């Protein structure tokens, strides 16, 4: 089967330590052109999986490949895949420019890329400062610069939004979306669903080293959340009766005496029923449970099952 040269593939990937199975029979593919979010709670096996893609850790069984190849089989891997696993992973006494110069030289990348990449991440003014003096946010930017200096078709970022201020988060998001729009393969991990909703097109969700979901974000939302209509009325009992007559089951909100939820219906429909019954509505809206809730439910039920 021909392999897409710019996709990441995990085939029945397993990583077992003495007392722990960190990654358990994981298979998925990360494709170019979209931002793929790699989601899982802390300790789910995300970093271990990313390390196996990069050849840092050896799988117990299965394979993690880049376009069907291992990194050691590529003459200049940094031109194929760029990664930032740990933003702090840079020698504290070396300047940002020297750090990038060493990286560029190793991949036979022209030295002009150093200044160019520093500009891209907005560190031009700090080029000659030791990386140890950088804030975590600046280290994130330097880490991203390290990943991008070889102009790779595939980028892997582990928790890239950690430690960034709101402006930095917005910057990193648009950077990742831009990289994907250029046709690159973008995989980034996070333990926060909220970060995924605004950035990812596609989700790979793991928990306890197992795959929970591998689908487009929109499909994930459709599959795992239900749209409900929320109504607020001074006459909750009356509205429940009216809805019941229309064959709809209302769920009273236990937290609020004048509120109820109805599933599988539109706001128009509920509004009409209330009008016909002559019931006053003070609020009528459509709500979805948050993806954060879905994710928490998903991972907590999974915990019980395990």
């Amino acid at each position: 089967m021909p392999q897409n040269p710019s996709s990441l593939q995990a085939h029945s990937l397993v990583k077992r330590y003495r007392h722990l199975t960190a990654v358990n029979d994981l298979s998925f593919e990360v494709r170019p052109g979209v931002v793929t979010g790699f989601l899982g709670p802390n300790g789910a096996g995300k970093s271990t999986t990313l390390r196996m893609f990069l050849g840092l850790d050896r799988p117990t069984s299965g394979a993690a490949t880049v376009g069907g190849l291992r990194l050691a089989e590529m003459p200049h891997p940094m031109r194929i895949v760029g990664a930032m696993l740990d933003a702090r992973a840079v020698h504290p006494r070396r300047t940002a420019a020297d750090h990038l110069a060493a990286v560029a030289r190793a991949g036979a990348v022209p030295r002009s890329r150093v200044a160019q990449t520093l500009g891209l991440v907005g560190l031009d003014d700090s080029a000659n400062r030791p990386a140890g003096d950088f804030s975590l946010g600046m280290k994130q930017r330097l880490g991203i610069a390290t990943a991008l200096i070889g102009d790779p078709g595939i980028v892997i970022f582990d928790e890239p939004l950690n430690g960034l201020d709101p402006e930095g988060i917005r910057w990193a998001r648009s950077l990742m979306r831009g990289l994907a729009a250029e046709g690159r393969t973008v995989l980034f991990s996070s333990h926060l669903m909220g970060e995924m909703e605004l950035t990812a097109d596609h989700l790979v969700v793991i928990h306890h080293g197992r795959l929970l979901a591998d689908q487009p974000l929109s499909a994930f939302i459709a599959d795992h959340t239900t749209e409900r209509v929320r109504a607020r009325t001074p006459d909750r009992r009356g509205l429940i009766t009216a809805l019941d007559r229309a064959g709809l089951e209302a769920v009273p909100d236990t937290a609020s005496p004048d509120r109820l939820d109805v599933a599988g219906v539109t706001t128009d429909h509920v509004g009409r029923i209330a009008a016909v019954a002559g019931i006053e509505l003070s609020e009528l809206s459509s709500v979805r449970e948050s993806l954060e809730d879905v994710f928490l439910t998903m991972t907590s039920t999974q915990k019980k099952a395990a």
Partner: protein
Amino acid sequence: MDLLASEWIKIRSIRTTWILALGTVVVTAMVSLLGISGLMADWHAHLPADFDPTGSSFKGILVGQILIATLGAQTFTSEYASGQIITSLTIAPRRAVLMATKVAVTALVALATAVLAVACSFVVSQATLAAAGLPTADLGDASTIRAMLCAVGYLVLTAVLGVALGVITRSSSGALAVVVTVGLLVPALAPGLPGVVGDIAGTYWPTTAGQASYTTVDAGPLTALAGFAVMGVFTLWTTLAAQLTLRTRDA
């Protein structure tokens, strides 16, 4: 070649490298000088039959070796401490090649350092001996030249040994502990061990054998070059062991 240039940028762009290199030169010369000054009175009173003006000039290597080994070790340990090793291994996933490159760059820096350290140590020591009216080394003598070359070689081998220990221990303090044990403690204690164990350890222990290579008076059953070879083989094996460790262990 690209990787070699990259590692060169890395080693030259941190000040620790140059502090340790300069430290090796200064400490080697100073300790040699102190050793000679301390014994000068005894030598005036009674010059030993096996007095070795060349070997006496290199006593400071005992301490200098610790610094140059640390210089070698930190090429890896500083990367393990900061996590930079992750980036290095992603960029250069062929680990044996990465290690060979670091060994080569370290050996190069160590060679320049060792030449300076040996030259300075020799010059100040000989000047002190001459000023005190004691016998000095004869630069026209082949054994003097051989001892100087072996002293340089010994320091370079120690730096390479440092790289290997840095890989195996992954920590500067761990590597330092091993270097001090192998380079100072065992050579100091081994001759005191009883009987044949003491004889063998006092002669064939790699650093002891290596240190005998830069004297001009035969001290034991090993010739100078054989002693240097023992140290060389030991360094080679340790380097191969380190390479195997690096290749098989998760980063």
